[in-house]
């Protein structure tokens, strides 16, 4: 991705600039300096204060103040504590954490050791999803090099501090990104969330105080300690400090990772950094926050992006995936898509999420297949509210967001589906109709020969005809016809 004046690399400071398989590369760019300084010159309290002053908030989605979390875990009395790195990144459209682990694994290792020193833990665990084989390999190499250099293990920097890190692998369950589920998965149980409190900081892995942070959160730590809290907190907005990495995907010219100061507007991200919409199409919406987030419209293009503004706009920061949609995308179908994801990934423990989302999906399916009625929109809204209010974990509590935000911002599209039986974007197949324009049809029989279900009939050199009851709307005839005689309505 093009580097652009608008971008500022903190979490991605080394990605692409060092060979991630060579520890000396990392060290030559001030790597492990922050750890050395903490261990030899600063008390844990001083270090925690620095993180608190920096204003860093968790990048895993929730935005909880990182320094405060460390302080709570430090104050939880126990003979054993753990540092956990959440690398289970599963939000559709998100690949920040993968890129950091692949491009700069030592920054995460260094930060976990600093965290261990601060909270009083000598053991770290990285929970990484199995879908990331290269990140796993790079992390393994980095861990063994750090051990070789004495940066992990016993008596690090001759300070008497011991710390080592173990890798645990996910096995294809999105809900394991939720911290209590992640901990249960590491305990060898089904990855089902449990009620909070107690928070992991008080009772986590094996019942011991456990500090869980996201990959990108950790990657910020060494930079903050090297350059100071004042520097970090000078970047960003009032309540969201520093930068955020976003993963741009979808109908945008420049796809890939970007890192921008908090408070950058969507317009800057999409048009200046992202290079605008592909094929000169019109921007319709950008989805942030994955299945927990919502769709933002042109109305929000000039809103500064930070945790609070996105929530006010009916979406959320989430982990930083941004999927850009253009005029060809049907927002009802998009909402249905996210619901499909949630349905599959719901752990099934509580009924609002397990059954409620199923019902939401059924209603959306009804609407996209042309059987929707006006009252369905209200049903969706009502049921969504119940699911949000009564689900156990963050997955269920946020799963209706894509539905609610598309209704709020694109009600006209819902209305077109239920009232007129039309899909304005031309995406919902059941609402489409392929027809042959008699005047243009030469009777060449090409469509007749290509239709997979024999829905087309007609004599050679006579206008052909499509039997709507047989047509499966595959679009083959539309593509094959050389005379533009087939229309889509």
């Amino acid at each position, binding site marked *: 991705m093009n580097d652009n004046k608008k971008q500022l690399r903190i979490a991605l400071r080394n990605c692409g600039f060092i060979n991630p398989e060579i520890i000396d590369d990392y060290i030559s760019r001030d790597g492990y300096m922050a750890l050395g300084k903490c261990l030899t010159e600063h008390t844990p309290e001083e270090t925690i204060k620095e993180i608190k002053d920096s204003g860093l908030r968790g990048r895993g989605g929730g935005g909880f103040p990182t320094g405060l979390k460390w302080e709570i875990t430090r104050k939880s009395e126990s003979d054993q504590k753990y540092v956990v790195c959440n690398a289970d990144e599963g939000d559709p459209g998100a690949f920040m954490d993968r890129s950091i682990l692949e491009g700069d694994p030592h920054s995460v290792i260094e930060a976990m050791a600093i965290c261990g020193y601060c909270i009083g833990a000598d053991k770290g665990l990285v929970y990484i999803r199995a879908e990331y084989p290269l990140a796993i390999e790079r992390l393994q190499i980095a861990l063994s090099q750090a051990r070789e250099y004495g940066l992990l293990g016993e008596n690090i920097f001759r300070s008497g501090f011991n710390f080592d890190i173990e890798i645990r692998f996910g096995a*294809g369950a999105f809900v394991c990104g939720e911290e209590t589920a992640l901990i249960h998965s590491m*305990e060898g149980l089904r990855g089902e969330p449990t009620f909070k409190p107690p928070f992991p900081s008080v009772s986590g892995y094996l019942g011991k105080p456990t500090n869980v942070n996201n990959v990108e959160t950790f990657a910020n730590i060494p930079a903050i300690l090297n350059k100071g809290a004042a520097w970090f907190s000078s970047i960003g907005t009032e309540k969201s400090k520093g930068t955020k990495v976003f993963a741009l*995907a979808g109908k945008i010219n420049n*796809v890939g990772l970007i890192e921008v100061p908090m408070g950058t507007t969507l317009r800057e991200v999409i048009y200046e950094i992202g290079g605008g919409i592909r094929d000169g199409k019109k921007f319709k919406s950008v989805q942030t926050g994955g299945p927990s987030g919502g769709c933002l419209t042109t109305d929000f293009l000039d809103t500064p992006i930070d945790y609070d503004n996105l929530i006010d706009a009916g979406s959320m920061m989430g982990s930083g995936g941004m999927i850009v949609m253009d005029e060809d995308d049907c927002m009802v179908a998009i909402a249905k898509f996210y619901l499909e994801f949630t349905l599959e990934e719901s752990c099934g423990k509580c009924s609002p999420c397990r059954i409620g989302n199923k019902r939401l999906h059924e209603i959306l399916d009804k609407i996209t297949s042309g059987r929707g009625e006006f009252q369905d929109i209200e049903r969706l809204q009502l049921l969504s509210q119940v699911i949000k209010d009564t689900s156990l974990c963050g997955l269920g509590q946020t799963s209706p967001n894509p539905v609610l935000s598309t209704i709020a911002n694109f009600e006209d599209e819902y209305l077109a589906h239920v009232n007129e039986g039309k899909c304005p974007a031309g995406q919902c197949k059941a609402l489409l109709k392929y027809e042959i324009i008699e005047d243009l049809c030469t009777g060449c029989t090409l469509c007749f020969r290509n239709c997979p279900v024999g829905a087309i009939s007609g004599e050679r050199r006579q206008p052909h005809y499509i039997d709507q009851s047989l047509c499966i709307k595959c679009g083959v005839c539309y593509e094959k016809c050389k005379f533009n005689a087939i229309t889509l309505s």
Partner: protein
Amino acid sequence: MDSIQSLIKDLADQHGRNRESLLPVIQGLVKREKYLSEYSMVEIAREMDIPAAEVFGTATFYSFLETKPAGKYIIRVCKTITCSMKGKNQLLFAIQDMLKINVGETTPDKRFTLLETNCLGWCHKAPAILINDEVYTEVTPEKIREILTGYMKENI
């Protein structure tokens, strides 16, 4: 002791026999055997002194722990939003057409299993697929034919 039993014993020696070692042991077994048979589950339960029902309950929670026989190469096609917007269906058709199997099935020669999965974190290079531990991105129907032909040439 048969080969499964000794594999399980080795894995338990390596990872431990506590409950928190259960997933690493199962994952080690699936890596070698491609799937977890009922027999393997019972043997893991015996070796680690965990009720077999618990082993089953835990394993079946995770989509990457196959409990049905699987082929040597497991193809996982991303079906999530960006890949769907960028031609995942055509890709899937090409694979089905070439291997003559549907999603969830294994070729009769036990070489390929075809599955769908959720976002692989390569959305900017969609569509993406995973074949065992190898990621392929921006896969077109032409490209997948080449890739699969490559795998077919490898010895079983």
